């Protein structure tokens, strides 16, 4: 066994994955290097076809790499699959797993048995988690009658049954409405925060979600990691300066009086807004070397007799970072590289027997 207590939660070295496909093989991963620390909330952000799902499938032992190595808490994804499966779990967005004929409680209990919980512990654990995620009213409802949001909550409970050390979440809020998605995000944060050392790997193409949840993010496109860092670090890549929009009641000597201050790179008038019928406000766009220069500006304004009415920092988004790195936005796809979900082969081919649906 190659795992050690100090092993990274995820360690990926020069990982490649090529799918046999016609007319030509599809390269899904092209030399991924990645390290995720135990206890970290790590995000893979990228458009459809970027290779996120392929990477998560390799890490969850469902897919072999074509070359390179990947380890989860020190266990090799090729040869130590059983150990990895004992300490991880996974949930994907739009997951329809299980059997519609069962109730929520029964379905979850069935899955608990796959992780070795005793019969009694299985029922107890299921009930605790059902209550924890607010599915109490649906406890004895058939799975086939759940709404999309309820179903995803149930899937999250399934993923938590074995109390995983590492939780892989593949677009977990895909297709959910705003409220349901928020519920899922809060649930993930609550679970992770309850115990030190729990690690989450989240793939998403929702930038706000990655920004809100992840301590570090890797931006992925065409099977490559383009950048890794905290959301703030990534944003600084595209905007090294601090940009503020300032509104004051008066600025007698104009914005130029601010531009001469130490640490101020530029100060330009922005559109002035009406404060009330008598007075007008003065708006200034300030570009500072860093946030520390702001105190000098505030002091100078005070000396000039100006009253600050509003001050807002202008932040770049992760989409700005992506555009800077890739040269296109998330919506401007070049055509999918590797399928992430719901490929054409999903087309219904003949119904299985009705009874088979009952499990």
């Amino acid at each position, binding site marked *: *066994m190659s*795992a050690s*207590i100090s092993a990274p939660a995820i360690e990926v070295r020069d990982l490649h994955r090529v*799918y046999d496909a016609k007319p030509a093989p599809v390269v899904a991963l092209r030399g991924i290097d990645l390290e995720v620390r*135990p206890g970290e909330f790590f995000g893979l952000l990228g458009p459809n076809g970027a290779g996120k799902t*392929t990477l998560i499938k390799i890490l969850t*032992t*469902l*897919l*072999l790499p074509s070359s390179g190595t990947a380890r989860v808490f020190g266990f090799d994804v090729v040869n130590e699959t*059983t*150990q*990895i*499966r*004992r*300490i*991880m779990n*996974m949930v*994907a967005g739009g997951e*329809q*797993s*299980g*059997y519609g*004929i*069962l109730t929520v409680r*029964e379905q979850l*209990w*069935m*899955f*608990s*048995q*796959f*992780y*070795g*919980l005793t019969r009694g512990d*299985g029922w107890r654990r299921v009930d*605790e988690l059902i*209550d*924890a995620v607010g599915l109490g009213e649906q406890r004895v409802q058939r799975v086939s009658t759940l709404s999309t949001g309820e179903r995803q909550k149930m899937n999250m409970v*399934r993923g938590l049954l*074995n*109390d995983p*050390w590492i939780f892989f979440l593949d677009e977990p809020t895909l297709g959910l409405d705003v409220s349901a998605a928020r519920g899922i995000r809060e649930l993930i944060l*609550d*679970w992770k925060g*309850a115990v030190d*050392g729990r690690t989450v790997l989240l793939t998403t193409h929702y930038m706000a979600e990655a920004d809100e949840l992840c301590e570090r993010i890797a931006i992925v496109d065409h099977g490559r990691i383009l950048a890794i860092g905290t959301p703030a670090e990534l944003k600084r890549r595209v905007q090294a300066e601090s940009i503020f929009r300032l509104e004051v009641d008066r600025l007698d000597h104009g914005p130029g009086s601010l531009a001469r201050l130490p640490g101020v790179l530029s100060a330009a008038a922005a559109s002035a807004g009406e404060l009330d019928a008598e007075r007008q406000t003065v708006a200034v766009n300030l570009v500072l070397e860093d946030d520390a220069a702001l105190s000098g500006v505030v002091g100078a304004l005070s000396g000039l007799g100006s009253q600050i009415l509003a001050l807002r920092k202008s932040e770049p988004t992760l989409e700005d970072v992506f555009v800077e790195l890739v040269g296109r936005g998330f919506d401007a796809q070049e055509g999918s590289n590797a399928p992430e*979900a*719901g*490929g054409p*082969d*999903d087309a219904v081919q*003949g119904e*299985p*027997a*009705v*009874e*088979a649906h*009952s*499990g």
Partner: protein
Amino acid sequence: MSAFVRREGGSPLESATWTSRQVFMTNLRTVGGRAYPRVTGMFREKSWVFFEILLPFLATSAFVFVYRAVEAPREYIGFVVIGGAMTAFWLNVIWMMAQQLWWEKSQGNLELYFAAPMSITAVLFGMAFGGFVMSSGRAVAVLVVATALYGVEFAIDQWLLLGGVFLLTMSALYGLGMVLASLFLMWGREAWHLTQLMIEPVYFVSGLNFPVARLGLLGAVAISTLPLAVGLDAMRQLAFAGAPYPEGTPAPEVEVLILIAMTVVLLAIARWSLAKLERMARRDGKLSIRWQ
């Protein structure tokens, strides 16, 4: 939140290290867990009463009337009633074992099975056990109703052997189901058509409605390859001791040996094919992953 507090395993390394007993018990619990939806479904979906008792019963009745019309020996009515009862198991194997993994894949269950720490063989054992329990109820219903209605008189000398043959037949039959489950998944989306293609020919060569030895060489081949054919043949001989049975039919004791061999071989093939299936799934990404 107390539900989110960790209970066991102080480190990932500790949590990943299981004893042999833990491994065994997890697989055993998996069998029970996977059998659960089938047993529960039996009570929840009442439509099976119509599809799996009434329809097979009608098919059985048709043969009963034919045998009566041609004045066949009375035991032949018993032969066809046993065949009718055993139909429930064959239908279960072909519909709910053979094409089940294919269906599990399309639902996204298969990748969850592969990603869990139990053996996929345990999942199939669970399907088989649940299916057996489910089909037993249906088989007993057909047997009891048809026996009462058509006045079948059994002549059983060797109860123990008959019970043993039945269990061996089930072992071999569900072993075949496990093999077919892997094969159908590997062959892909033709599972539905393959299933339909197999039903009637297997009915015929298994001799569900007549002693398979009547088929001559074809019957001999069936007895040596199809668990249902050999099991039915042995059960009929044991349930109607002294009945006029076609010459050349192997004795029940010989058929027991054939069934034992079939069980061992089929379970070994099932285990091998499941391991191969998982290797293929991980190598190609085409079997466990829904979009592939």
